[in-house]
């Protein structure tokens, strides 16, 4: 999916964005944004946060590297 946004030519949402050397997908960014909004709204639902983190690629990698049974 490509959307032409002024000043940002041919922004491809399928390709990961590189921020500080970390490649983040668009959907991960969206989820992080939702998490930030929830945090700002004082939502303290830890299970929801865990499920949202696990939906992101970065969160999955971190979680499974921490709790991998094949360590």
């Amino acid at each position, binding site marked *: 999916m490509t959307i032409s946004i002024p000043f940002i030519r041919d922004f491809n949402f399928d390709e990961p964005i590189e921020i500080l050397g970390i490649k983040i997908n668009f*959907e991960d960014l*969206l*989820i992080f944004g*939702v998490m930030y909004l929830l945090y700002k709204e004082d*939502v*303290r*639902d830890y*299970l*929801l946060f865990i*499920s*949202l983190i*696990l*939906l992101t690629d970065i969160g999955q990698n971190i979680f499974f590297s921490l709790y991998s049974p094949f360590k």
Partner: protein
Amino acid sequence: MSDNKDMNNMINDFLSNGNVPDNVKEMLGNLKSNNQNNPANTNINEIDQEKISNIINMLKNNNTNNSTNNDNSIDMETLLKIKTIMDKMGNNQNDPRSNLLKSLKPYLKDTKKEKVEQYIKMLNMAKVMDVLKPDGSEDKK
């Protein structure tokens, strides 16, 4: 005390019949003399018997009351818990957490869409586990 008098009269009648062996006569004589010589013991025995019978009756009553109360309370508690669980399982559409995850679904890849469904199920299970807590308290958000 009246029981002891009756008992003494019975022993006297029994001994007066004559068809009693000597050993039995001695035993009954000792029993009679004990009853006549120690009225304090008989009083103590009576009091003890009364106390014991009272305690037994109290225990019986308590046991029956407790058993009936426990049965009723367990039944009511379990029924209420089952009802709340069924309500919570049925009200999936009103759950904001699952609604949020569902709303994110169109923006995710196909592999993650399946995971969203799994996480919604997990959240529903967590809700049920909150109900099944021993203190019955739920996490406030």
